[in-house]
């Protein structure tokens, strides 16, 4: 059986073709122009993950919201739960870029970190 998908690792967006055997195990990935495409296809079919970016409330700063990012990719089905947790987070200025805003969010061993300095 063959599956097709678009690689989302970089802006090129390769069209990937994945050959699966009768047990739905991955035999071969083609269409990728770099090794990251191969790894992405295997992960996307077994445990799809995404980097998550959002904002949290910040007090005493020049803006109302502080942009944040996950320290690494998280399982796709967990995005909603993480967003839910971020809804209740309030931080105080000043914040430095890369400061940890939430440690080990939703028990995923991933931190939520600031993606800018805000005073």
């Amino acid at each position, binding site marked *: 059986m063959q599956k097709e*998908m*678009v*690689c*989302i*690792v*970089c*802006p090129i*967006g390769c*069209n990937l073709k994945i050959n699966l055997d009768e047990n739905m195990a991955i035999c071969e990935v083609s269409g990728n122009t770099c090794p990251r495409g191969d790894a992405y296809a295997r992960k996307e079919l077994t445990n799809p993950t*995404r*980097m*998550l*970016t*959002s*904002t949290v*409330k910040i007090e005493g700063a*020049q*803006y*109302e*919201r502080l*942009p*944040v*990012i996950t320290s690494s990719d998280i399982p*796709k089905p967990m*995005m909603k739960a993480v*967003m839910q947790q971020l809804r209740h987070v309030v931080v105080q200025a000043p914040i430095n*870029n890369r400061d940890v805003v939430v440690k080990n969010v939703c028990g995923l061993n991933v931190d939520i970190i600031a*993606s*800018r*300095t805000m005073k």
Partner: protein
Amino acid sequence: MRTYDLVVIGGGSAGLAAALAANDSGVKDILILERDKELGGILQQCIHNGFGLHTFKEELAGPAYAERYIDLIKKQEVEYKLNAMVTHLSDDKEIEYVTPTEGYVHIKAKAVILAMGCRERTRGAIAVPGFRPAGIWTAGTAQRYLNMEGYMVGKRVFILGSGDIGLIMARRMTLEGADVLGVAEIMPYSNGLPRNIKQCLDDFDIPLFLSHTISRIEGRNRVNQVTIKQVDEKMKPIDGTEKVFDVDTVLFSVGLIPENALSEEAHVTLHHRTKGPIVNESYQTNVKGIFACGNVLHVHDLVDWVSLEGAKAGKSAARFLKDELHQEGRTIEMVAGDGIGYIVPHIVNPDNITVALECMFRVTRAVKNVALAVYRDGELLKTVKKVHLAPAEMERIMLSKDDLKGCQSNIKIQISEVK
């Protein structure tokens, strides 16, 4: 009147890179004029990931990318003014600006770099029929409200236009709890990157209606309904294909236009296709000493190319100030052939090329397995194979000093069949 060596108008990604490069090239009397309350430009509201793959070899969120440049500007002690709105620029490089602390200020510059960026096309620009209630936004404005000011602009959303900003806002609004009912695109293909279709729409089961446009907006005070219609190949709406959505918000992501009000005041000639200045290999406009870079010159797809272009304009301005830029001599015209919308730079003085010339351009149609052919004075110089080309993505070709040697009148780039 205070005279600066170099004034950079706009402190976004183009202006910051330009000022830094000029500073590195020995220009020490620089002023950046930024109208917002901080440097960084549009990057500050682009909180998503993926910036800097080429510049920094890593993927950063927009604000983090901006911060790298802002830190360097501060470290190098390049002067900048915030909340500074430039109200006038003349062709003899006199600049008027206003700030809340200084009031009205009149200065002069030996060189100017235009880095004002671009503006979003609005509902008015594409004349959508219906009422004009509240709840209708350009996608970028909604993005700033949501990501910086802390306002959610609506709960049931329809988006017109499948450019990257529209797609990214579809995901962002969904993650924040809104129902995004669909994205309509008048073209038969999306103008966004394939990865954004996947991770912004498909991931959240948001439907994309290709060859569709909004035919009616309803609502007296607040928008309450949109109707979309399929369009034929001439983009005319087809009766009987209506789909109706109950919404409280409509976002428009229907293109960007370079912001050239100041350029026009300074008698800078604009290009009919890019809507930005016509520039030469040094990113100099027709007005000597006025340079342009970034989205004010032509709308880019990746910030990395904006930074690169800004740096080149900054270096050129430094050469101009040291009187090292050849203003006379032969001129090669860059010709956009079949399938090419435009090429930047538009004209080339080969005497100013030190190593190579980077040509940036966009194609006018989506094609697969073709070649880009480069002609010198009508003779084939080289071809570059391309697996896929799309209008949404900027293309680049490098021409060496040797490639340009002996060229008498023009270089043409066009799409051709692969032999």
